[in-house]
């Protein structure tokens, strides 16, 4: 109970004025302004179901890793929100508000045709990210935004929500990252197997290290799909 009270008492003033737009599994997400800019504030609040020691350690680590991964991606030219400010005391991250964007999930649902170019683009971006040894950790079509350019085919893919991300050069970790996406992709968008294959083909072409990663992906698929109730 004490944890709840202290958590409530510690609400920073900038969150009181912010507008909550959603509560994910990791954090509450708010829209606000910061130094005259429109921002998204991501607040990792205490998860009361978790043991306090586990919660504190995870929250601290994930906040740090998220910022580190975003900066690493941006340095490599991968589109991700700008980090404006990090409040480590309250585990809040102030991020660029990617305006006039639509999630890939909503885009696929509203325009189920002509998605090959998009699949290829996702493959390229993920290849680039993995070549920088950034593991996203929670790849879903909800965590990718599309911002349109001038023409119909001209769009920018922005990766968001690096809350479970970390740095690793291991093909195993990259394979699992793709496996997580594959399951989320096919569960959220049934009958898109061909589209996902296109994504993987594009990933393989674009990544310098794809052979070992795809091999690991196949291994992980076997572990997940074939081990049901056996072992």
């Amino acid at each position, binding site marked *: 109970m004490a944890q709840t009270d202290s958590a409530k008492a510690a609400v920073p003033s900038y969150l009181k004025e912010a507008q909550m737009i959603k509560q994910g599994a990791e954090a509450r997400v708010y829209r606000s302004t910061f130094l005259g800019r429109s921002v998204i504030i991501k607040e990792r609040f205490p998860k009361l179901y978790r043991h306090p020691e586990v919660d504190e350690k995870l929250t601290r680590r994930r906040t740090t890793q998220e910022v580190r991964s975003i900066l690493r991606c941006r340095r490599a030219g991968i589109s991700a929100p700008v980090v404006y400010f990090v409040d480590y005391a309250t585990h809040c991250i102030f991020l660029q508000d990617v305006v006039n964007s639509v999630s890939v999930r909503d885009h696929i649902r509203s325009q189920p045709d002509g998605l090959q170019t998009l699949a290829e683009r996702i493959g390229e971006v993920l290849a680039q990210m993995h070549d920088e040894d950034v593991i996203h950790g929670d790849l879903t079509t909800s965590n990718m935004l599309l911002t349109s350019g001038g023409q119909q085919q001209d769009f920018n893919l922005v990766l968001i929500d690096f809350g479970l991300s970390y740095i690793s050069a291991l093909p195993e970790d990259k394979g699992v*990252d793709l496996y997580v996406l594959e*399951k989320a992709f096919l569960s959220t968008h049934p009958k898109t197997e061909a589209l996902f294959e296109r994504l993987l083909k594009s990933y393989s072409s674009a990544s310098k290290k794809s052979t070992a990663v795809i091999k690991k992906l196949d291994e992980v698929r076997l572990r997940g799909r074939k081990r049901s109730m056996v072992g």
Partner: protein
Amino acid sequence: MTIVIGFEGSANKIGIGIIKDGEVLSNPRRTYITPPGQGFLPGETAKHHRSVILTVLQEALDEAGLKAADIDCVAYTKGPGMGAPLVTVAIVARTVAQLWGKPLLGVNHCIGHIEMGRLITNAQNPTVLYVSGGNTQVIAYSERRYRIFGETIDIAVGNCLDRFARVIKISNDPSPGYNIEQMAKKGNKYIELPYTVKGMDVSFSGILSYIEDAAHKMLSTDQCTPEDLCFSLQETVFAMLVEITERAMAHCGSQEVLIVGGVGCNLRLQEMMGVMCKERGARIFATDESFCIDNGAMIAQAGWEMFRSGHVTELPDSWITQRYRTDEVEVTWRD
């Protein structure tokens, strides 16, 4: 009025249940229990099932006050599960269906759990956490399938708990998971363990390897008690499960959680899930041990739904499979 008898025996439980239009008429069950430090082997488990299945069948009919002529359909677990026990049960179900002249129906074990959970709790369209000795999956219904949004990428949570119980020689009676739960209540020191979540997926092999290596060392040097280890393991693996369930709920926009499977009986898991749901303004649904743990009525209930929507398994197709994905089944009985 439709009456379905269901045969379940995919692991160490053998159960036969009878369902009449959503009412459980009978649900007797037996469990194959092995000595501490040992798991159950397929051959030995099948032998146990063979020795009791006809007694359980008679109990089911007697308890329901029915005769063979009253049954409309015979449902059995087609998979997933352990090969030898599945075969044992399928043979009896096949034989009974032929003797009684009734249609046969092969049921997915996981869907049995889900449909029983929905029946008992009245959950409408929940995100399902299915946790047992052989399965760990986060499931949601979409477009005529129970879609797997997250799952273990190695071993199941129940398997992790069972194998830990073997390491420190916890009794298998009534079940290792139950005994871990009771011991955990007396633990108060938290030992840090690996916490591995990958999006909506989890991994338990790392935590198991770590605790297998560390357990005897820590216990022999009085760094902690067996109760502390049980407490720490439970707190860690259940936090992982609640986290991936919440992530799936956020992803699917769901406001209901249904916990099914043997590990779903654990009151600490239910409590942690309840805390998460309260924070989200969501509702939690769970069943007691008579329906969480593998039982015949759940196969009868899934069979009832399938039979009413036109499914029947022809004799040549009435085989079993150890590997049968939840999302392979077309769910024709839901909108």
